[in-house]
Structures are given as C-alpha cells and as structure tokens.
C-alpha cells in the first residue's frame, strides 16, 4: 500500500529534481514556472478579475460616489431576501436530488469493468455535448401537455396534468443538467477506493448497510461534499432552466439580476445583487475549506 502510494506523483514529480540542468538553477526555474502560468493568469485577469472588480465597484457606485444604498435596498425589501431563500431552496433540492441519483450511478460506474464504465459514462455525458438550451427545450417538449408523460398518462386513461412551469419541472430540468458534475466527482473518488476495503469489511462480518455506512460513505465523503458544493454553486447562479421551465414563483437570483439589468437598467443594483451572490458562493467555498479542506476537492484519495 505504501509502495503504491509512492508510485504516482504524476506531474508533481516535476516539482522536484531531477530536472533538466538548466531548469534546476533556482532563478531560471521560477521564471519558467511563471511563464507557464502567464496565459492562465492573463486570461483570468482580463475575463474574470477585471469584470469582477468592475461589478464590485459598480455595486458601491451612486450619484454621490460611494454608497451602500444598493446593498441597503437588498435588505429593505423582503422580496430580494425571499428570492435568495428560493434560490437556496431550489439549489439545495437540486443538490440533494443529483446526489441521490448520482451516487448509485457512480457506484455502478466504479464497480463495472473500465470498458463498460466508458460506455455508461458516454451515455451520461453525450447529451451534454448539445447546448443547454436544446436540452431544456427537449424537457419542455417531454413534459408538455402533449409530451411523452402526458401521452403515457392519457394512454392509461388519466387526464393530462400540468408538468411545466412549476417547481418540480425546474427541479427536473436543473437536476438533469447538473447531474454529470455530481456523477464525475463521485466517480473519480469511488474509483480511488480500494475494493479490498469493501471485501475486508464483508469478511469482518459487516452487512451491506454497514459496509455502506462505515466504509463507502466516509471514503466517498470528499466526493459527496465536493460534488454537492460544485452542483450547489452552479445551481445558485442558474438562469436558463428556471427561466424557461419555472413558474412565476420560481424566481432565482440570476433571474432578478437579469430583470434589473435588462428591464430596469439598474446596473448598480444588479451589481450589488451579483456581489451578494458571489459572496455567498465564496462563503460556501470557505465553509468547505474549513470543514473538509480544499485539497480533497481537487485530489482523489486512495
């Protein structure tokens, strides 16, 4: 086990000598590393940091210069806090739903042969090569009054039901589009688990439930937390699906930001809303880092 653990350092091995001689000299090496980072940092600076800073600036910008009125307004009217709560409610539900669906799926993917896993994985991923808009419209067709569901219901002699433009349809649409993120995160963690641990647990008398609770669950926890965080953060900023599939009450933060930008042209307030959303996301990350440590999010453990 210890031998296997040392076997793979992957690219991290590059960080320690032996390196080509000219790279080993300290100054040159730092320089090389910096050069390697330039494209990424440059891209982030132009397309992330700058707009982000702009949004922050804008959210404090009023007629008389610096102001907190946009933030004040957020808390003045219950509607925005309510939208925030709805956003959490929807994102939380979607996170739980994706977890419930993705966990057994990822488990199957991790236990079948690599060949079968590749085929199953392709089935999970291929729909995601098409645009989210197309996929959302596909759901609208399926759930529509003359869609698949209602045809089946009709065939069984039931009256058609309204499946669109309500909370369940938002959850269906979002769960569907966010599922692969959860599956992939869980899968990579599960692949890393030593199958012998499961066998060992059985040999020691553990029931299926105890194998799950005492072995699988703790070992997949980084994947559960990482996948949930990822899905939650993505869900919090979701726009297209709630807009197209949601009802009048399924307003999320992104929807009302768009409303402020497009209809009310109140970009400063929209910026404040975006900043609040960003802060919540960062707090989420912070919480995760504090609870689990960010490293587990990016490393799969064996």
């Amino acid at each position: 086990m210890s031998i296997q653990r040392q076997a793979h350092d992957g690219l991290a091995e590059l960080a320690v000598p032996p390196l080509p001689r000219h790279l080993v000299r300290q100054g040159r090496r730092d320089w090389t590393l910096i050069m390697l980072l330039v494209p990424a940092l440059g891209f982030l600076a132009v397309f992330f940091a700058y707009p982000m800073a702009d949004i922050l600036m804008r959210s404090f910008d009023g007629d008389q210069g610096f102001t907190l009125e946009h933030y004040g307004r957020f808390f003045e009217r219950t509607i925005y806090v309510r939208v925030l709560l709805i956003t959490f409610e929807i994102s939380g539900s979607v996170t739980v739903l994706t977890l419930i669906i993705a966990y057994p799926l990822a488990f199957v993917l991790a236990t079948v042969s690599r060949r079968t896993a590749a085929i199953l994985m392709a089935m999970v991923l291929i729909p995601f090569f098409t645009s989210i808009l197309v996929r959302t419209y596909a759901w609208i067709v399926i759930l529509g009054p003359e869609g698949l569901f209602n045809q089946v219901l009709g065939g069984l002699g039931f009256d058609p039901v309204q499946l669109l433009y309500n909370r369940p349809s938002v959850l269906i649409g979002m769960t569907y589009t966010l599922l692969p993120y959860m599956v992939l995160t869980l899968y990579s963690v599960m692949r890393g688990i030593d199958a012998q641990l499961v066998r060992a647990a059985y040999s020691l008398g553990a029931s299926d439930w105890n194998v799950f609770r005492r072995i699988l669950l703790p070992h997949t926890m980084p994947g559960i937390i990482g996948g949930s965080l990822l899905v939650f953060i993505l869900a919090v900023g979701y726009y297209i699906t709630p807009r197209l599939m949601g009802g009048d009450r399924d307003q999320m933060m992104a929807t009302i930001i768009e409303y402020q930008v497009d209809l009310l042209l109140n970009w400063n307030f929209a910026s404040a809303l975006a900043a609040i959303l960003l802060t919540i996301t960062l707090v989420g990350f912070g919480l995760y880092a504090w609870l689990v440590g960010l490293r587990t999010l990016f490393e799969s453990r064996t």
Partner: protein
Amino acid sequence: MTKVSKRRTSAHVGGKFGGNYSRRRVIKGLAAGAGAAAIGFPNIVRAQKGGEVFVRTSGGSYQDALQEGTWSAFEAKTGIRVVPVAANTAKMLAMVQSGEGGLDLIAGNEPATITLRNEGALVELDKSRFEYTDLDDIAPVTDHYVGYSVFAEVLVYNKEVFPDRHPGSWQEFWDVGTFPGPRSLQDAKAIAPNLEFALLADGVSRADLYPIDVDRAFNKLSEIKPHIVKFFDTGALGASMIAEKTVVATSLWANRAQVLIDKGAPLGIEWNEGMRMLEAGAILKSAKNLDNAYRLLDFELSPEPQANTLPKVLLSPANKKAFDFIDPTLAATLPTSPQNREIGFDNSGAWWVENRDEVLELWQEFLLQ
C-alpha cells in the same frame, strides 16, 4: 486608469472609487466584445459599394416580411446593405454608452423607445432629411422617434375549448366560472404587465384607464393569478402555451396569434377591448452609418414599403397614406381598422414611461406572492 474623474471626488471615496473607475470604459469593453463577435458573422461583408446599415430586428416572420417588402427594395434602390442585429434595451444602451456602434436604426415598442430617449441614447431627428416620406402623414412624430407601425394586444382563445361561446371581453376572461381553464397574461419582461386589461375586467371604462390605478389593477390581477399557469415573458412562450393548449385563453399580440392561425392552430382572436400599441422608429446616438440610417428610416416610413410589409404580419402602417396601397378587405382586419378602432383603445406610452419602473418593482413582488 490614471485619469481622475472630476465628477466623483467626494472625500470618503477618494481615488479608490472616483478615479480608477469609469463606467464608460467598462461598457466600451463589453461592446468591443460584442463587436468582435459580430465580425465573425458571415453576412457582414464590409466595403460594400453603398455601405451598410445595422437594423435592430426581432426575427421571425416579421423580419421575413421586412426583408421581402422593404429591405430588398431599399438595397436595390440605394445599394446600401441592410444588416439585421438582435438586441435588447440593455444591450442598445451599452452600445451607445460605449460609443462602439454596431447598431444604427432601431424599431421597438414605445415605452422601450422612450426609455432609451430618457437615457440620452437617441439622435434628435433632423426632419429635413426625409425625402420619401411626408412626416405629416405619420403619427406620432416626436423629436427623437416616429411612429412606424401599430400592433394590437388582444384576447386569444382556443376555439376547440370554447366552440360556441368564448370570452369576449376582459371581464369574461376573468370569469373562470363561465369560462374555465388555465390562462396566461403578459409578464413585465415582454413589454409590460396587462394592467389595462385588469382594470377593464374590474369595470373601468376604456376612456378612464389612464392614469392607471396601479393598486386596483394589481388587486384584480391577484384574482386571476391562481388560474395563470405562467405569465408569458416572451411572445414565443405566449404563443406556444396557447398553441399547445397549456392555456385556453391568453392576451397576445394579434400578429403573433395570426401566425399560429395561419399554421392551422384552432385559435380565435377577440378584437374587443384590444390594446393598440405603437412601434416606434429611432436612430441610436452611436450610429456609425448615420446617413444610411436616415435613408432607411425615410424609406421604411414611406407609403409603399409600409403597405408591402406591415399588413402581412397584421400590423397597421403608421403612415396613413400607406392605406392607399392596401386592399380594403385586408385593411379591415388590421389593428387600426375603423371597426377595431371602435372597440379597442390606445396604449399610453407616456404613462408607462412615467410609471414603468414602479410597476416593474411591484411586479416582481406580485409574482412571488
């Protein structure tokens, strides 16, 4: 980044927020990105002989009608290429504030146009530049925009659900006992909420709609809300919900409904208490092809192009001379036909410009209730 803005130098802000930050620069950047995206567009071929003009479009059958009835003739006549561009109000405003251009001539509903005017985004029109069009024939003509067409928002219902008696007024639309079934009405994102229809349903007469009693209108909307599947936030959604029988009745733009009917949807249009709305033409301040924009606007407003274009999509020309070129039986079906005039009413763009923001704020809360 070293420029110091004179406007914002309050003490507690200092250089931190005043100096380094310029809204204009940012928008400039955004629009530059939009421009760069447009360059890749295959039908934009620069260095045409007569130049080009960028026109806002809402796409669909309306754009087809424009291409066929107006733009082709214009291109043949002037050699100026017409390039349609999709944009919403926020994007247009960003274009103007950044000064990057990308759009010259725009047409849009009156409240949106007035909003742009109030933001200082529109060119003050030089009336002397109009050659093909006698502006006296156009209603309305203002400093910054002119009427281009008139469209109507009407009650649309499913004929299969209501084969004998259908809701014939907004009061009946609200009467879910007599006319049961799910409904839709317009969301704020698609022009504006149907406050006028709510007041009519509540017994206000057409003459007394404006100024709108906003509270009363919202109260009446609350009544119908449990029966609303979803307020349609785009014309496309409104059309698909009524076409697919998700709802049995809705407010909708007559031209949209007509497209569905022409395709065979079993829909009926009730013109009674229909609301006529103005589509206005204007030129953006950031226009890079100002002359071409004037020429196209001039041409678009002239009687024959109006007559060749607008009735096809059930719109009324704003140029009264255009009716000389329209078959009277066709004219009778348009929003401004004498009969429809009699039973409908005019939307007040002026009221909406004054009150739109307040209504929009209330609307969001109303949706969540």
